[in-house]
């Protein structure tokens, strides 16, 4: 391949993006701050720029480099802005307050109250609210 730097940079940029969600997201140490992916993106960007510099066809290689760097930019947006769009939650119970009771169905369709859960759990209950599975 004549301009391997350009294409390696482009492929690495895509890989850096996908690997975060497909792999590094699983581990808190590489999820909370996606440092591995940032390193991959920086290497990809260096390769893309080197590829453009060496290229005879500047417009064509410039487009490839632009797309590769756009993936990087989108990733930065995704992990800094997009996932932080959460509504305020000032009314959530604070430490020391009484937890509001509720009655909900469990996964077998049985009605369950927080009071009943606590009564059967001497060491307390850890409520984990999550967005749902789809």
């Amino acid at each position: 391949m004549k301009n391997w730097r350009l294409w390696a940079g482009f492929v690495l940029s895509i890989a850096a993006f996908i690997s975060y969600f497909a792999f590094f997201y699983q581990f808190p140490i590489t999820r909370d701050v996606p440092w591995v992916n940032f390193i991959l993106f920086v290497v990809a960007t260096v390769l893309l720029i080197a590829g453009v510099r060496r290229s005879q066809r500047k417009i064509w290689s410039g487009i490839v480099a632009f797309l590769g760097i756009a993936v990087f930019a989108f990733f930065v947006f995704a992990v800094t802005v997009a996932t932080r769009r959460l509504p305020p939650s000032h009314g959530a119970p604070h430490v020391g307050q009484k937890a509001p009771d509720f009655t909900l169905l469990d996964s077998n369709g049985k009605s369950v109250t927080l009071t009943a859960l606590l009564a059967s759990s001497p060491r307390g209950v850890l409520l984990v609210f999550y967005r749902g599975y789809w």
Partner: protein
Amino acid sequence: MRPVAISVDAPQVSENLRRKVGYKFTFLSDPNTEAIRRYDLLHKGAGENGRDVARPAEFLIDRSGTVRWANLTEDLRIRARSEQMLAAAR
């Protein structure tokens, strides 16, 4: 300490997830966001097809019903780690 997971998913959806992944703990279904609103965790329109869902949050509640520890993330990607929750439960 007993973990209890709460979401807007229907009981059957949670049961499928529970079986598939092998979770042993309780899953509660809050399709009408009753408990979610009572805990002020409603994230309007953030789910599939603009459905209201819960924003992620964790609360450790002692036997008397008092909140002992709470974690409200600022970022969807960053949830309480299991070690944090276990430390809080000690």
